[in-house]
Each structure stands twice: as C-alpha cells, then as structure tokens.
C-alpha cells in the first residue's frame, strides 16, 4: 500500500522539481556548484584538537572537502546534452550532498553540537541540495550508446590500461587514508563517482572493452597484482590483508559455483574451508597437534581439497533433492555440526584450542617464513603467501571460467532457472547439482589448506555461521555468478572494516543492513552477470 504512496511522493517531488527548477536549471545548478565549491575552500569546523582558529582547505576534515569538489563535476552533467546526464548528475549531486551533510553531522557530533560546524560545511550542504534539485529536474535519459562504438584497437587497449591503473591508484590512495570519517567520505565519493560514470555509460563501455581485449586486461591485472608487494616499502600490514583477501576470494569463487551458477544456497560453506584447513594442519607437522604424519604441502593441498569434496558429496547426496530454501537450512545445519564436532573431538582437533604453530611452507630451500629480497626490494614474509594466494586465485578463476563456459556450466544455469524444465530437457539434475557441490567444496578445501599455513593455526571459532554468511555476502554483494563480482565483494568486505577501525564495533550491524539493502535495491550485485540482471529486472521496462 504505502509502497505506492512512496512512489506517489517520489513522483510528486520529481514533477515539482521539473516544474519549478526545470526552467531555471542552469542558474540553479551553477549556484549549487559555486556554493559547494565555496564550501570546499572555506572552514568546516570551528575546532580542531583544541585549536580555536578556523580551518582551511588543508585542515579538518581534510580530504572530505576536496571530495565534494570532485563530485560537483559529474553533478553538472545536467547542463550538458550527454546521454545519461540525468543519472550521472543525480549520482554526483547526491554524492556531494551525502559527503557534505555526513561530515557536517560528524563534526557536530565530535565537536559537541552544531556550534562546532563552521559556515563552509553549511555552504557545501546547501550547494549539494541545489545540485540535487537541478539534477532531479533533468528530463529522462536517453540510453548511452558509448558501449556500441568501436575505436582503433590501440586506443581501446590504452583505455583498458588507463582504467585499471586508475582503479589501482584509487585503492592505493584509499589505503593511505587513515582517519575513519575521511575514509568513509572517500568510499562514498568513489561509490557515487562510480555511479555517475556508470550513468554516462562509461562502465558499460569499459566492460565491453574488457571483453574484447581480454588478454590485455588479464595481463594488466596480473601485472598490477604481482607488483603490489613491491609498492609497500617492506611493510607487511596491507600485504597480509590482501593475502587474506586473495584466499577468501578463491573460496568465494568456489561458493559462486554453487550459489551463482547452480543456484544452490549454501549456508554452511565455511565448513569445507575448515575441513581443508584442518586436514592441512594435521599433516603439516604443526608444533601443537595430535597427529605425527607429515606430508609435503602439495600432497596436503590435494588431500585437503579431496576430503572437503568427499564431505561435499556426502552432504549433498541425500539433501540435494530438497527445495532451495530447505537445502540452505540443511547446509547451515551441517556447517554447525562441523563446528560442534571440531569443538568437541579433542583427540583429533584438540577442541576449542585448535591446532597451532603450523610451520611455514618450504619449497626446496625457499622458506615462506623468511623475508626475501627481490629486485632490490625487501619483501616481508607475507608476500610469499601473497604470491601463493595469487597462484591459487588464478587457478580457481581459470576453473570457474572454464566451467562457466562449458556444457556443465550451461546445464547448471538451466537448473538454476528452472529445474523441472532442465530435467525435461535431459539434464541429469541430481548428478550435476552434486558435481557443483563437490567442486565448490573442493575449491574451498583448497583455499583452506593455504589459509592454515598462512594463519599458522586453526581453531573452531574461525568457522562459524557468520563466516559462511560473510562469504555468501561477498558473492551476493559483488554479483552472483561472476568472477569480478566475487573479487570486488571479498575485497570490499575485508578491506573496508580493516580500514574503518572506528567502525569495528558496528561492523556486523552495517553488514546485516548492507545485505538487506543490497537485496532490496540491487539484488544483482555490484558487478552483475548479464544473465542475472535480465532475470532480476524482467518486470521493468528496458531503458528507452
């Protein structure tokens, strides 16, 4: 009922904006831009660590004010004739408003009331409001045709390289932003700017380019990934974080086979990761352990993955004929059973204490526990695991894409779309679902074996329901059924909490809300597969 009420209010607001702001759009937008720009050069806060003077551009809240300037540019798209100008300018203007108002609130909150807010913040917020009004008053968009146009191959390849370099630069810059409010502003700015760029059709164009120039894209991304540890001046912090991201992303892609391709919701997936980790730990010759078998890591990897796959089949075989949501709950139950068993089976898993002092890997004389000097750069020992993680990730991605493009992958999609129809077409649904389960479990087990050595200890509290949900959220957030989606999802879910130490406490709250909001407004994820997008928005008109 009130959904339509909300829609009516929205309609009325848009009509109002068109009627009253529409004819005066250029002056309103310009005034907004001038106000926002003025705001970004004037003081925002009347306090700064007890310093009574008013701050300027370089002062508190530092970067946030330059971010407003960055967002004003796309907000002015409503003055141009570009296709997609309306969505682009709405994204830019909303971003400018969000960053200014958000910082205004943060300043008032920290400074003990609105008295702490200086006029600059008010100017920027007012400017943001005007920009939003102007953007909303824009006539509806025409679809951007950027994606269809072709340019000479070298130009396109250069565009691929430049865009990837830009992404890298943003990540690098973001890692250096330490102050939490500022980092939040940065993330918001990137998100809204990305929205604006997508509105103009640039993202679609780039996606097409990545498809056309796959080799260039792959080589450039691989180079960037390999180069990363060399840019860290020998400090381990971010290398460690990105190693973990890599391992988790590998597991997330494995989950993507199960959830994204075959459409089976698995809520206990972390158990397979845990099986792999425990198997690897048991045969690693760990310092604190219950077994005295020591196997080379290569064997341990295969063994861990295979044991996990066997578990996958054992769990899947009796349950896969269930309805989708029942299956989800059964997998959840299995995940919890795994955790409880590991917690209580003292003679093998040492219960809640777990197995620890797992030795670092050694390949011949190459010790993963030691820092190494490569090309004159000292790489901390985590970079060894970083590169191992990269190899793992690359292999998992290869497996995923080959599966996706194969007969098996198409059969999975058919099952996901309509199991009955797929069975009628001669797809052996039970066997294929079981295969998806086993492959997903295998990949998770593989990632688990690496994680056991990287983390040097395994214990039951690493494999809780919340960890399963985190992996699932990585897949859902990024976009079900795509590799970039799983990568973006795992990166965002680990990197953002890592940066926002101040938000460590409400991390899970935001996480829960994010799941709800994603499902509500963008169920296809940040990087949707085209198939999924079509499926989830079938009731909407295609863009005119």
């Amino acid at each position, binding site marked *: 009922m009130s959904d339509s009420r909300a829609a009516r209010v929205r309609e009325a607001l848009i009509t109002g904006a068109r009627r009253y702001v529409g004819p005066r759009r250029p002056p309103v937008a310009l005034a907004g831009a001038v106000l926002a720009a003025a705001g970004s050069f004037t003081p925002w806060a009347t306090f700064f660590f007890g310093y009574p003077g008013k701050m300027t551009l370089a002062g508190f809240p530092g970067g946030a004010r330059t971010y407003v300037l960055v967002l004003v540019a796309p907000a002015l798209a409503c003055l141009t004739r570009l296709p997609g100008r309306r969505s682009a300018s709405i994204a830019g203007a909303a971003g400018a408003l969000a960053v200014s108002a958000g910082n205004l609130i943060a300043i008032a909150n920290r400074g003990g009331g609105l008295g702490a807010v200086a006029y600059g913040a008010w100017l920027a917020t007012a400017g943001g409001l005007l920009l939003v009004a102007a953007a909303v008053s824009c006539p509806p968009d025409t679809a951007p045709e950027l994606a269809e146009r072709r340019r000479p191959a070298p130009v396109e390849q250069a565009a691929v390289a430049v865009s990837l370099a830009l992404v890298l630069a943003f990540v690098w810059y973001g890692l250096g932003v330490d102050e939490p409010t500022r980092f939040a502003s940065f993330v918001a700015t990137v998100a809204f700017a990305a929205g604006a760029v997508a509105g103009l059709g640039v993202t679609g164009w780039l996606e097409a380019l990545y498809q056309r120039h796959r080799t260039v894209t792959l080589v450039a991304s691989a180079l960037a990934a390999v180069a990363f540890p060399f840019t860290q001046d020998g400090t381990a912090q971010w290398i460690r974080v990105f190693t973990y991201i890599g391992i988790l992303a590998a597991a997330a892609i494995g989950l993507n086979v199960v959830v994204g391709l075959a459409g089976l919701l698995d809520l206990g997936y972390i158990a397979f990761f845990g099986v792999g980790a425990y198997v690897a730990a048991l045969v690693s010759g760990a310092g604190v352990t219950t077994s005295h078998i020591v196997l080379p890591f290569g064997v341990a990897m295969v063994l861990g993955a295979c044991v996990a796959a066997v578990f996958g089949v054992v769990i899947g075989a009796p349950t896969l004929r269930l309805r989708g949501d029942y299956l989800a709950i059964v997998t959840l139950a299995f995940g919890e*059973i795994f955790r*409880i068993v590991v917690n*209580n089976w003292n003679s093998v898993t040492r219960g809640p204490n777990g197995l620890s002092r797992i030795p670092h890997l050694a390949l011949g004389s190459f010790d993963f526990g030691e820092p190494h000097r490569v090309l004159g750069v000292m790489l901390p020992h985590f970079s060894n695991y970083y590169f191992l993680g990269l190899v793992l990730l690359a292999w998992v991605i290869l497996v995923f894409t080959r599966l996706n493009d194969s007969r098996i992958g198409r059969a999975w999609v058919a099952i996901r779309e309509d199991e009955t129809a797929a069975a009628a077409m001669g797809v052996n649904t039970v066997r294929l679902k079981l295969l998806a389960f086993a492959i997903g479990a295998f990949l998770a087990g593989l990632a688990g074996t690496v994680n056991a050595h990287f983390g040097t200890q395994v214990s039951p509290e690493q494999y809780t329901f919340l960890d399963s949900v985190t992996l699932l959220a990585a897949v859902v957030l990024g976009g079900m059924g795509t590799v970039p989606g799983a990568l973006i999802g795992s990166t965002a879910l680990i990197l953002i909490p890592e940066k926002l130490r101040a938000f460590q406490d409400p991390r*899970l*709250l935001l996480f829960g809300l994010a*799941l709800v909001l994603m499902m*509500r407004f963008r169920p296809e994820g940040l990087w949707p597969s085209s198939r999924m997008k079509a499926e989830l928005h079938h009731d909407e008109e295609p863009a005119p």
Partner: protein
Amino acid sequence: MARLVQQLINGTVLGATIGLIALGYTMVYGIIQLINFAHGEIFMIGAFSGLYAYNHLIPEALRQNVAVTLPLVMLAAIVASTTVAVLAERLAYRPLRNAPRLAPLITAIGVSIALQEAIRLFYPGGKNRQSFPRIISGDTFQIGGVTIAWTSVFTVVTAVVLMLALEAFVNRTRLGKAMRATSQDPETARLMGIDTDKVIVVAFMLGGALAGVAGVIQGVRFTAIDFHIGFLAGIKAFTAAVLGGIGNIRGAVLGGFVIGIVEALATEYLPRGSDWKDVWAFVVLVVVLTFRPQGLLGEQVAVRS
C-alpha cells in the same frame, strides 16, 4: 525410572519454548514460503524488552508482586516483538514478495544479524550476559522422586494454551479462514477479496507475539539472557516446525516437544552429553529433511515453484 521421567519432563519444558517460537516459523512459512531467519531474533528481542520493562518501567515497590510484573513484562515483550516483526515484514520482506526465492532468505539473514547487533550495541550493557529477574517463584515440588519447578509448569501450560488459542483463531475466525485461504493459494485468495497483505502482517504479528512470550519464559527459566540466544533457539524452532510438518500448527508444537525431549535424553544418557547438546537439533533437522521432508504430521503448504 525417575531419572528417565525427570528427563522427559525437562525435555517437555524445553520443547514448550521451542514450540512457541516454531509457531511463528510455521505460520509465516505456511503463508509466504519464507524461512523467516530473523524469527529467533524476534524471540531474543522479546526477552530483552521484558527485561527492560522490569528494570525501568515497573516501580521498585511493585517488583515483588507477580500479578503486576508478569503481565507487564509479557506485555512489553509482546509489543516489542510484534512491532519488530511487523517492521521487518514491512521494510525488508514485502518489497521482495515477487523476487526469486533466495533473495528474501538472504534478506532474512541480514535482518537477523542486524537485530542481534542492534541489541548488542544499543541495549545498555547488551554486550554481556544480563541477569533476568526470577519473576515467578523458583520453588519446586516433588512427585515420586521427580523434581518439578513451578516455572516449568507455567511454561508448558502457557505453550499449550497459546497453541490451542492460535488453532482456534485459525480455524474459527474470519481472519483465520483468510489465513488458511492465503496459504493455499494467495492469487485466488486475493481474487476472492481477501486482503492478503493484511493476512501476512497478521501472521507476522501473531508469530512475533508468541516469540515475545517465549522470550520472557526463557528469561524466567534461565534467569540470564544474552544477544546470542536467538540463533540457536531459532534453528531449533525451525527444526521443530519442519519436523512437525511446516504450516501445521499442532505439528510445530509437537516438533518442539520432540526436539526438547531428544535433546534432554541425549544430554543425560550419552557420554559427554552436555558438550554435544546443541548438535542434536541439527542432526534431527538433517535426518528429517532427508527422510521425511513433509514432517511428522504432514505439511499444509501447497508446493509451488
């Protein structure tokens, strides 16, 4: 013998709470085929609201008076649980009514985490265990070597009475008839002039109210609550609902009793039983879904794709 009877009684009491929560799962699933994963959290919120009412709304002079505290604490729990359940339906689930099946389930998980965290962060002292007042006398009485607490009697009586009331509501009233019709075929029900949105809200309200009552009972029986209690209780209750046959009101309560008794007996008779006590609900869930997914009493849901 006395030991066995004692455990049967303990299990029945445990099962009564589970059954109360299971009623909410079974009604919501019966009508919109949604596993309302956040339902365990609704129960937890009921417990915390009851506690809040006791500590902050009831004058200290009246706290010893059961006739005042019990209804007020129950009322606070019911109001809070119902409100949260309806808000979740309204804001999170309803917009996804026609989305693919997995989307609402993921949303439900998100709601569940968010509610848990909201209590942990915003309830005063919510990060730690909170002691819950023993509103009803903690006294026990003996029958043939078996010890029974008055709280246990209260628990079982409340659960059975509420189940009967709910069944009467569903079978005898106009709104109950509308609920049954909607659960059989929402499209046709709408064509017959039933406001299905209202029916769904009512299902969430009733489920929320029962979970709120269960929350207070849990607090009274264990005299301590924390923000985690919803997860396990929710899983056990869902298991009970499936075990009894989802969509089936008597089945949900029966399932609750079975789970409770299995857990009590396993804890008592198996070696290191108490370490494994939470595993049985999961094992029962897996076994039931594998061998008899329609439950003991048969489900009353039309299977739709």
